[in-house]
């Protein structure tokens, strides 16, 4: 396997009884790439992602994440990835610092390392004044940016973002994407699912899933050309409507 490939997937399939949620998908993601994983609700995005982050066993096919096999080395995968789900996953009843300390501790970081990383993102986000507030008291936009920062605390090689900007205002979404860009520039691979087609334009490459299969995979620009339309929105509608 090429060392530049952060994720490589071949014929990955997940069946629930007779229903095939993910049907033999194949793709590769380069190191430092922002990979958009698109699809309508129920197309199988979340199921596919769950197999890659090691909390769902594939029915068949092969996949490697950060160089580790999704069948045998799920625990090693977990050490090397960050994950942020559509459900906000910081603890409301802990402060920003306490959340960072907890998640950092789980990944085996030393107190010193945690403190350093925490101070880094606190300065970057400019939230020194609320670092000791309970997370529950913060607005949603802040929470999402924090959750992203905390998911990076152990410097993962690949970050999986499952609809990270759901319900967030356009300005915060913009800021969120700036954070993503910055992280990708540092060499972190970003695997992101989204419903917002303007966000799809920000990705290096985009795949579109329809009924468990990947129907299109290319850069946003090429996809627009290929389907002869002027926006990702139009590409998506053409594909998703069949």
């Amino acid at each position, binding site marked *: 396997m090429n060392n530049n490939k952060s994720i490589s997937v071949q014929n990955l399939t997940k069946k629930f009884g007779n229903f095939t949620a993910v049907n033999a998908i194949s793709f590769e993601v380069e190191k430092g790439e922002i990979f958009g994983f698109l699809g309508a609700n129920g197309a199988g995005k979340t199921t596919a992602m*769950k197999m890659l*982050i*090691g*909390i*769902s*066993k594939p029915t068949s096919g092969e996949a490697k994440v950060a160089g580790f096999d999704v069948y045998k080395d*799920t*625990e090693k995968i*977990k*050490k090397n*990835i960050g*994950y942020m*789900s559509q*459900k*906000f*996953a*910081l*603890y*409301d*009843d*802990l402060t920003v610092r*306490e959340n960072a*300390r*907890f*998640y950092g*501790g*789980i*990944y*085996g970081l030393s107190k010193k390392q945690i403190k350093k990383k925490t101070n880094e993102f606190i300065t970057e986000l400019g939230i020194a004044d609320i670092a000791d507030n309970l997370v529950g008291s913060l607005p949603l936009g802040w929470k999402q940016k924090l959750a992203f920062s905390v998911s990076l605390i152990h410097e993962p090689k690949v970050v999986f973002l499952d609809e990270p900007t759901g319900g967030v205002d356009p300005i915060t979404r913009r800021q969120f994407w700036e954070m993503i860009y910055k992280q990708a520039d540092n060499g972190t691979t970003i695997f992101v699912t989204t419903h917002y087609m303007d966000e799809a334009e920000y990705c290096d490459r985009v795949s579109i899933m329809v009924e468990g299969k990947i129907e299109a995979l290319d850069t946003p620009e090429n996809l627009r050309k290929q389907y002869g339309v002027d926006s990702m929105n139009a590409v998506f509608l053409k594909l998703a409507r069949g």
Partner: protein
Amino acid sequence: MRLSGKNMKTILIIVQKEFKQIFRNKAMLPIIFIVPIIQILILSYAATFEVKEVRLGYIDNDKSSYSRDLISKFEVSTYFTLTGEYTSQKEGQDAIQKGKTDVILEIPSNFERNLIKEKQTALSVQIDAINGAAAGVENGYITQIIQGFNNKIRMDLMPYQPQQQNVKRIQFTPSFWYNQTLDYKTFMVPGIIVILVTMITFFLSGMNIVREKEIGTLEQMNVTPIKKHQFIIGKLLPFWILGIFILFFGMNIGRFLFDVPLLGSPVWILLFSSIYILVFLGMGFFISNFTDTQQQAMFIAWFFVVIFILMSGLFTPIESMPAWAQKITEFNPVRYFIEVIRMVMLKGSGLKDIMPQLIKISIFAVVMNFLAVISYRKTT
């Protein structure tokens, strides 16, 4: 499972986080400190088997000095209050029917004459037995008073025939061991402490894990390299500590407010309860693996707690249950803790005495936690 330094550190991090959350939860401190006091205070006074102020009506068909004497015996007893005299059986039954009286004592005509001439007579007693347990107790009181009256009459009637001692009566004086005064509080308080420890550890541990499922942090946890046993130990240890604390808090309330004795060593109670709490933590964890919301977990936990309490021997003796129900109580961990805490506190039992219960509870703990661990999956 290696208990290396790193391993311990991860567990410690989870424990720290749990304690922070427990004490930050505004509903939690009252649960930990006020609920035990209120439960012990209220239940210990309310859950008594004594029946007081039984309302007694009578029908005196004899109107003799003996019959009046017997009635006055009831009048002076602290357990009875007289509701009045009825003239006929029908009137008396009416009074019971309407709930005006609990007991009707009927003295037949010729009561005195029969007693003196034939040395025996009969009385009729009717008891309202809607509450069977109370009726049983009332019957006991009445029998006691009539027996006392009986003895007195005997003395009255045969004082000058000392040679006629063929009427030998067996006198028995009951002596109640371990709880001489039959104080119900002494009996109830240890049991209520057990219920308290059970409910708090069971409910809190079960709900706590489902709560993480609800808010989505459990999924987040499953994506981290955290090990299964680290997560389980880290999650349950705080509630184990809480359970032990509640136990000692409750025992001290019992001691200082109710003078419940502690004859045995608290070490045996500590030993037993530290395994006992594991049973319920395992159960709470097990339930949380099969439920998605706190409500579901709560309903299932309640179902078990109600059965466990009713079949624990706390309110009704296990010996008086039907045989099949007695069999079921053998699978009730609450039963064993109530037995053990009563034995150690009131009787001064030692390790050897509580060994059978200790072995059984250890088996429960192993089985329950085994089930909990295998049913918890980081991967689906």
